[in-house]
């Protein structure tokens, strides 16, 4: 009998503990926002960095850091009586099914006003289905797959560019640099991972290449996270295109660069579809092999003159994460900024009103840390004013090389040499 009693007591405590926990932390008037990112699994570091970025922006909104940007004055959301933004994180494990379940949990149990996510497009595809069903806004901070905003969903808002816009910038750059140097790219090789991100990216690249009259010399779809990419590299080597266009996450990006080096293959130009190539761990792992690699980016850390908030926001983020802002973390910060602005203008977290406020968003680029014209959503929920840039690793760090008007360094272009 005593054991039974003890068990019952333990069971009671275990059941009640979460209740006590939730009620103690849910201060009156806080605006609760959910964030679904991979916090464990193969993309864990990206999610951990995203958490640091979102926490940094929440600190800016709630605290008193006086950043020269929208909501930078701090002190909470003025229209809601200084209500603080509170984040609830959920771990997608970079698995679409887990992401779906976690999004549902955030909505039904934590009653979040909106969800921000999620790094990989495959997880965003399932999260946005859940938010659509429950009629809660999903703010896509850093998913680039174009199809996400092409499915007729009403509750998705994507602040950052899609791979259509990103890839457009890559081909504009190839055209412009070709004209400037007289060495046009005649062929490209595509290598991409086999989930929605890589496949969608390659589909756009194929189309843009055809439109630009550039030959696709190799079109290689590989299995993500495979232990070796050396055969894939041999095929790239054999094709020997002018420009290599990889769409890879971090682990594959590291393998790809190493395998190319080991097989004695040095592409004349590499323009990456962001993702793995902009991670610090990629630079650390491949070191000098990354020199000259270009990538599309939504962010330019070196655009400090046009965007005065970059330096102080980066300093605040650096204190938290121990690294500089990159293309992904900067977009996470901007996503929360845009969402908080909409909640403020709506004056409530009531879903329909919040949705209307998001749809009416008009933010000038200078009020953000991004090099964009601004933030304004089209009727599909896509920010149409997010202009990408092309960056290049020169001397171990990223420099903006295109558009030429905002470039901080001249591009190194080895095609035709």
């Amino acid at each position, binding site marked *: 009998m005593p054991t039974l009693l003890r068990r019952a007591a333990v069971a009671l405590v275990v059941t009640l503990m979460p209740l006590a926990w939730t009620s103690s932390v849910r201060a009156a008037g806080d605006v609760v926002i959910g964030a679904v990112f991979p916090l*464990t699994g193969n993309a864990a570091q990206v999610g951990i960095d995203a958490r640091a970025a979102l926490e940094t922006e929440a600190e800016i909104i709630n605290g008193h850091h006086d950043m020269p940007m929208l909501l930078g004055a701090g002190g909470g959301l003025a229209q809601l009586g200084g209500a603080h933004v509170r984040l609830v994180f959920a771990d997608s494990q970079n698995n679409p099914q887990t992401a779906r379940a976690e999004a549902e949990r955030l909505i039904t149990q934590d009653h979040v006003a909106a969800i921000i996510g999620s790094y990989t497009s495959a997880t965003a595809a399932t999260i946005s289905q859940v938010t659509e069903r429950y009629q809660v806004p999903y703010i896509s901070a850093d998913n680039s797959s174009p199809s996400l905003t092409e499915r007729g969903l009403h509750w998705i808002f994507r602040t950052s560019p899609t791979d259509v816009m990103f890839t457009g910038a890559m081909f504009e750059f190839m055209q412009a640099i070709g004209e400037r140097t007289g060495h046009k790219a005649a062929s490209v090789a595509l290598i991409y991972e086999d989930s929605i991100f890589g496949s969608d990216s390659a589909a756009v690249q194929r189309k843009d290449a055809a439109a630009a009259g550039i030959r696709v010399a190799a079109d290689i779809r590989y299995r993500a996270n495979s232990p*070796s990419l050396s055969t894939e590299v041999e095929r790239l080597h054999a094709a020997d295109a002018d420009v290599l266009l990889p769409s890879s996450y971090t682990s594959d990006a590291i393998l790809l660069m190493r395998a190319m080096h080991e097989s004695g293959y040095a592409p004349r130009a590499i323009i990456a579809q962001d993702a793995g190539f902009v991670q610090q761990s990629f630079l650390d792992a491949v070191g000098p092999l990354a020199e000259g690699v270009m990538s599309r980016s939504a962010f330019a850390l070196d655009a400090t003159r046009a965007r005065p908030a970059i330096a102080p926001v980066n300093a605040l983020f650096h204190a938290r994460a121990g690294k500089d802002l990159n293309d992904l973390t900067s977009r996470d910060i901007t996503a929360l900024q845009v969402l908080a602005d909409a909640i403020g203008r709506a004056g409530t977290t009531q879903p329909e009103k919040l949705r209307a406020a998001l749809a009416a968003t008009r933010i000038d680029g200078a009020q953000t840390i991004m090099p964009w014209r601004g933030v304004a959503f089209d009727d599909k929920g896509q920010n149409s004013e997010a202009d990408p840039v092309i960056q290049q690793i020169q001397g171990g760090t990223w420099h903006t090389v295109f558009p030429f008007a905002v470039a901080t360094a001249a591009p190194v272009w080895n095609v035709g040499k």
Partner: protein
Amino acid sequence: MTPVLLLQVMALGLLTGLVYALVAAGLSLIFGLMDVVNFAHGQFLMLAMYAAFAVHAASGVGVALELPLVVLLLFVLGVATYRGLIARALGVATNRGMVQIFVTFGLGIFLTGAAQFVFGGDFRSIGDGMLANRSLILHGLHLPLAQVAAAVVCLLAFAALALISRTEFGRALAATREDREAVALIGIDRNRIFALGWGLGCAAVGVAGVMLVQFYYVSPNVGADFALIAYVTVALGGFGSLLGALVAGILIGEVEALTALLLEPSLKQVGMFAIYLAVLMLRPRGLFGRL
């Protein structure tokens, strides 16, 4: 496709396959000895890689120091795992099979979480090792030096395992495998043999981990992809067969490489599993299985 390209791809497939084989050897040894599938095998590989990484970062000496230290560490870890967990799991009265599965599976999840806690989720790699980013060029073939070294060490490790199986301890291992009850009658301590078997199996993974981290990144989840291949390798080669693991590892390396070259890179695991299914249908005990 040129003959050089085909040869190049096959050479790389062989080098990769030898690493697969060594990862599988430890798994096969433990399974053959006591019918326990170690679902934490990939995590042991990951630990070995982190350990080698840490030794490298602290000393900068290279493989010569990393190998003995990490192999010893993994041996101790293997013995400790057997004594602390497996022996207890074998002692339960009911559902022994399930308990064994859950114990090693749970250990694997714990180790992945612990690694993320201690080392963080980032990808790390030895960028400045003696072997890193260099290639041997033979008759137009580019052979990554680190992978060649890994292949040589793998072959040596297989030779060492084969030698051990000829010693008295090896015979005791074999006898325990044949009839774990009868060996007690001739004075063999079954528990001790099992513990040493676990130590040996984990030490083999330690060798693989040290050689792998010379050219591969390490992250808390790095073991999963290799472990899956190791399970297939063991089943393909035959449970408990050392030669089987070697042949099956090389076979899988080649099948993967050639599928990626001749068909579709995204289908390379399909090729591997197709071979596996074919062998299962025609010869269920595996290529060299005795059971």
